């Protein structure tokens, strides 16, 4: 019975707190973009002419099918992260695609039209080397997988293993490649570095070794990329030290050494320091490869060669050329070569592979993005036109992970920015006012206005009103002009020039920093990329921190953002300052950072140009200010005694607090050591600087007030035990005052382990951990209160707080795994808070903070009902209505960013991971704007109805009065 009451109470409160999406809101203010990552393998479906499929496998462990006409995804399979989901090879035959996953652990075959799995087999352990399709008599039937010490052959239609054989002498020989020319045997090629090559020949039927030989090759270190099989089973290798090509027929038993052909004889030379690359093509796995091949001699020099009757003949020299690739359509094989045209463009041409002759009218001009990287991969899709000539389309991948799909004569069919699959950090910046709005603002903003006197002010007001009128008329004219044009031709292109802040500041600029070092400026309303900037020379293990130093509020000063790029190994950092609206690099001189940066601090102090001051602390505790004008230094001197900062050294388990001195040196104030033998610090979080708390306390059921402990300097420190045993592991949380180092609260969760996700805001900390005893995720909430009285209600000072806060805690079961956690944020903090939980299924759950309230009573009382407290229930509910992204799941959600909008009810949310999803949430429903479904027709019809009813009744009353008077 009691349960029933609890349930009832919960369901009642749910009705109150529900904030869900209505079906008609789909796509109205939210959008999702799906990404795949850096392409490692791409294959065009050449099975049929009309096929639009493009199969890709990427470094994000994603296997997907793209529509080659639009660039959209047909389907996408996201495997687990890490090496266990790594895609080693992608092979395609007909409708099937075979994928080797997890260092040769799994072999999967996919049906490519629907995207369903056909079969999956587990292979023996051993590091993966190569995989190849094996054909017998023009039919591809098998797939062979080469591991470090074994080779196995699998049936292509069922995945069943035909045979598996151990490789001879696998501890000394490095087997690296596999080759089959469709004549009933599989060759496995191995190398003993700087000694000899080993060639083992297996019979396809039963895996019997037909032949095994070793050929001397002292110069060889690795078979990969410097060797290829051409023509009818000729192994061809290139070596840059001896400047020679070597050939060896694989099948002949008698030849025991490789034939050397000096490159000089062909008038060729490998650039010193460059590892030459051989590229051959085998259009049909059941037939031997073609006798033509590419030899790359330097980064921008390719040559097409032909191997006939033991002789090598150059067909065409491509100097300069960046990229070259083969493609086959039907019986015809072509080669596409990209060569530089001028500084900003490249031209791609098509050549017939067997003669090296250029196909006429096949040039594609590829315009390089001046803010992008260089092209580094070329994928060609060749097809036969109606007149039997070969047409082609190309996909170009650049260093900054842009995929561009081009067709003749250089039209960009589609473009994908795959760098966005790995967003590291982001910020949202308000859009600037339009010129007219800024003009109006300027009228009030200037100090001069007061000195001007009355008349000039009136004139100014009139002129600005006139400008507004003008803008309005122009807007009307544009509306009219657009309306006359047919609907399709009206472009809804968003450009930077027309972007301006909307009425409620709902549209913002999203700044996204990606792991590859590419920055993006994205319109939050439509998801259009407005600018992009590739930063070259970014180390792959860099960490980024994005800081907004000046917002758009300080017209005419442009907004300013600073990106701190730090090398993870050396700790050395550099600053990149840019305008977040236009993406242009700022001309401001940036301080050099000779020492590793260990902490940054954005101060509320502003310089004369309204830029907030950024302090960078190096490993010798020296402070660099940016900007460091005289004005700033003066201000810093004045306020130095009240500037504190903290440092975390997780390797020594040390937290330390420092104070700034007037000469920009620092002094140690406090130090907290958390012994590393027992536990280690995994995360430290303060509160968000732009957070507002509206109410100082909570009104209790008996009309008294429980004041919140709102310490802006509070740090939440999460520790995990070093002992990972299920019984002894624990998760600890410390709440430390960042100024005094006082430990405000300490809690330990026994039999728990990470990963811990937590949110620290207002007077509460919510954290999630894994309960290893009961094998479930648990939420715990800590709330801090000062009590019934505030100690000093005017100002909070960490140095003067004699009483420790009251701490309330409660824990709940969360019936799902968690990827990330964040809290909503609104302009003034009046709206109730929700927690946004990113789930591995890709959904984002909006969980009312109401459910995470340590004051939830176990027994319902009159007072708790008065306070709207939900009775305690151990299990947290998950309702599908709370999934703010309905079926638009975000794969591998890694972070959620929340930003306030101009409307108090509305919080902007961006979830990023493999995909990016942007939406708005209304934690307390839209209380400050009319609802979407507000019935204008009803209200106006009622109004008009009443109006007419009054008119008629008035008239009737008049007639009646008149009649009575006559009586």
């Amino acid at each position, binding site marked *: 019975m009691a349960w029933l009451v609890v349930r009832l109470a919960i369901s009642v409160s749910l009705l109150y707190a*529900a904030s*869900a*999406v*209505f*079906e*008609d809101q789909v796509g109205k203010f939210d959008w999702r973009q799906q990404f795949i990552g850096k392409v490692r393998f791409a294959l065009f479906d050449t099975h049929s002419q009309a096929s639009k499929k493009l199969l890709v496998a990427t470094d994000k462990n994603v296997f997907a099918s793209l529509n080659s006409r639009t660039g959209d995804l047909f*389907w996408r*399979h*996201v*495997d*687990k*992260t890490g090496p*266990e*989901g790594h895609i080693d090879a992608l092979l395609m035959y007909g409708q099937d695609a075979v994928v080797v996953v*997890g260092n040769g*652990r*799994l072999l*999967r075959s996919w*049906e490519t039209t*629907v*995207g*369903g*799995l*056909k*079969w*999956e087999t*587990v292979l023996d*352990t051993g590091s993966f080397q190569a995989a190849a399709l094996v054909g017998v008599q023009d039919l591809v039937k098998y797939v062979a997988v080469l591991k470090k010490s074994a080779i196995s052959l699998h049936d292509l239609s069922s995945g069943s293993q035909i045979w598996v054989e151990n490789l001879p002498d696998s501890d000394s020989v490095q087997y690296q490649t596999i080759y089959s020319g469709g004549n009933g045997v599989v060759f496995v090629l191995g190398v003993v570095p700087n000694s000899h090559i080993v060639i083992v020949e297996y019979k396809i039927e039963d895996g019997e070794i037909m032949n095994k030989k070793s050929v001397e090759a002292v110069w060889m270190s690795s078979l990969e990329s410097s060797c290829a099989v051409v023509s009818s089973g000729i192994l061809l290798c290139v070596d840059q030290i001896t400047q020679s090509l070597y050939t060896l027929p694989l099948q002949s038993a008698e030849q025991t050494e490789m034939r050397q052909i000096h490159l000089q004889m062909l008038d060729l030379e490998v650039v010193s320091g460059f590892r030459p690359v051989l590229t051959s093509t085998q259009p049909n796995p059941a037939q031997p490869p073609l006798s033509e091949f590419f030899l790359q001699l330097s980064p921008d020099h390719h040559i097409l060669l032909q191997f006939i009757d033991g002789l090598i003949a150059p067909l065409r020299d491509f100097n300069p050329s960046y990229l070259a690739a083969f493609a086959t359509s039907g019986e015809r094989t072509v080669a596409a070569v990209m060569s530089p045209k001028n500084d900003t463009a490249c031209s791609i041409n098509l050549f017939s592979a067997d003669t090296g002759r250029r196909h006429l009218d096949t040039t594609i001009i590829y315009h390089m993005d001046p803010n992008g990287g260089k092209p580094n991969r070329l994928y060609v899709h060749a097809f036969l036109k109606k007149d039997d000539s070969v047409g082609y389309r190309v996909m170009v991948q650049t260093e900054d992970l842009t995929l561009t799909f081009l067709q003749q004569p250089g039209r960009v069919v589609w473009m994908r920015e795959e760098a966005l699959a790995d967003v590291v950090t982001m910020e949202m910046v308000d859009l600037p006012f339009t010129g007219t709005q800024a003009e109006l603002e300027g009228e009030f903003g200037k100090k001069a206005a007061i000195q001007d006197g009355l008349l000039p002010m009136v004139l100014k007001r009139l002129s600005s009103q006139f400008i507004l009128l003008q803008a309005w008329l122009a807007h009307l004219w544009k509306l009219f002009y657009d309306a006359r044009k047919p609907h399709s031709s009206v472009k809804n292109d968003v450009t930077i020039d027309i972007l301006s802040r909307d009425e409620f500041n709902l549209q913002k600029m999203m700044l996204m920093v990606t792991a590859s070092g590419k920055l993006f400026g994205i319109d939050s309303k439509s998801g259009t990329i407005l600018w992009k900037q590739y930063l070259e020379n970014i180390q792959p293990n860099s960490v980024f921190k994005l800081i907004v130093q000046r917002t758009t509020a300080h017209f005419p000063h442009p907004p300013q953002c600073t990106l701190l790029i730090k090398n993870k190994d050396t700790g050395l950092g550099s600053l990149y300052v840019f305008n977040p609206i236009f993406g242009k690099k700022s001309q401001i001189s940036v301080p050099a950072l000779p020492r590793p940066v260990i902490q940054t601090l954005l101060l509320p102090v502003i310089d004369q140009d309204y830029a907030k001051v950024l302090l960078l602390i190096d490993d010798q505790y020296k402070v660099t200010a940016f900007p460091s004008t005289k004005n700033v230094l003066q201000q810093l001197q004045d306020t130095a005694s009240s500037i504190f900062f903290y440092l975390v050294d997780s390797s020594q388990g040390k937290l330390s607090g420092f104070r700034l001195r007037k000469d920009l040196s620092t002094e140690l104030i406090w130090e907290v050591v958390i012994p590393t033998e027992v536990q280690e610090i995994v995360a430290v979080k303060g509160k968000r600087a732009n957070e507002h708390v509206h109410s100082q306390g909570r009104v209790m059921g008996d009309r008294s007030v429980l004041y919140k402990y709102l310490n802006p300097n509070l740090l939440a420190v999460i520790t995990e035990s070093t002992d990972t045993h299920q019984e002894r592991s624990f998760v600890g949380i410390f709440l430390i005052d960042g100024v005094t180092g006082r430990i405000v609260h300490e809690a330990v969760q026994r039999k728990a382990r990470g990963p811990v996700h937590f949110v620290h805001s207002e007077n509460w900390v919510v954290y999630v951990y894994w309960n290893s005893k*009961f*094998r*479930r995720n648990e939420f715990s909430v800590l709330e801090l209160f000062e009590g019934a009285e505030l100690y000093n209600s005017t100002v909070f000072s960490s140095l003067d707080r004699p009483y420790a806060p009251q701490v309330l805690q409660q824990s709940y*079961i969360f*019936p799902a*795994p*968690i*990827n990330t956690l964040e809290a909503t944020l609104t302009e003034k903090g009046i709206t109730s808070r929700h927690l946004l939980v990113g789930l*591995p*299924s*890709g959904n984002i759950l909006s969980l009312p903070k109401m459910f995470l309230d340590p004051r939830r009573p176990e027994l319902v009382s009159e007072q708790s009902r*008065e306070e709207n407290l939900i009775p305690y229930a*151990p*299990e947290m509910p998950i309702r*599908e*209505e709370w*999934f703010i992204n*309905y*079926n*638009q*799941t975000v794969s*591998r959600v890694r972070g959620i960013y929340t930003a306030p909008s101009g409307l108090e009810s509305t919080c902007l949310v961006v979830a990023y991971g493999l995909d990016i999803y942007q939406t708005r949430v209304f934690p307390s429903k839209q209380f400050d704007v009319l609802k979407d*479904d507000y*019935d204008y027709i*009803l209200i106006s019809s009622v109004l008009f109805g009443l109006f007419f009813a009054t008119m008629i009744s008035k008239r009737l009353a008049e007639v009646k009065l008149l009649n009575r008077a006559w009586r």
Partner: protein
Amino acid sequence: MCRVRRVCVAALLLLAAAASCALDLKLHDDEEEDEDAMFQTPGGDVRVRVSGRALVPGVRAQDWVASARVLLDGDKHVGFLRDDGSFTVSDVPSGSYVLEISSPTYRFQPVRVDITTTGKMRARVVNYIKTSEVIRLPYPLQMRCIGLHSYFIPRETWGWSDFLMNPMVLMMVLPLLIILLLPKVFNPSDPEMRREMEQSMNMLNSNQELPDVSELMTKFFSSPKSHAKAGGGARGHRGGAQSARGGASRRKIKD
């Protein structure tokens, strides 16, 4: 006609027999699979294959498998679905996992899968509160779709019937009708009727305990209990309606 029917029945019987045969075969297959579902890694820890089948009744598997995944404990282990809805998650070390099928459209009940260190497996109902409770489920897993995800809440729609059946509106409209219609039904100038009404009025007035309408109203308005603020307006209206009725009756008496 009769013969045709007999043939049909025979065919059906045959079909059923064939189906049961197929089922038997399938079961055997599964048993065979069970044996090779276990692997011993060089490190000595057991790696097993969790397999099962997901079913969405009435929907072809091709239409939904491409967007679905099988997740073990979040995305610690991931499996994919075949064209017929069956799935295997390979390489799972021993432990206890919650297996769920994540599909953006269809909803499935999660299942807890326990794998012992020797590679034995069992499936049971997920219970986060009593984690040790065992309600066994068949293994290989049979995952049945339990409906579509209901992501949206319906809009509050507005209809005339809702409006008219609203108690507030009824309260307002009925007295109005009475005011308008009553004078038409009884003719107040008829002396007989007048006498009758006076009599009934006297009877009412003789009952002195009945509170006056105006008293009632003041009572309603002067007791604004803070917790019932929302209800205040409604009560006010109700009072208004009553007063209207009362007013009407009194006027009738005067006439």
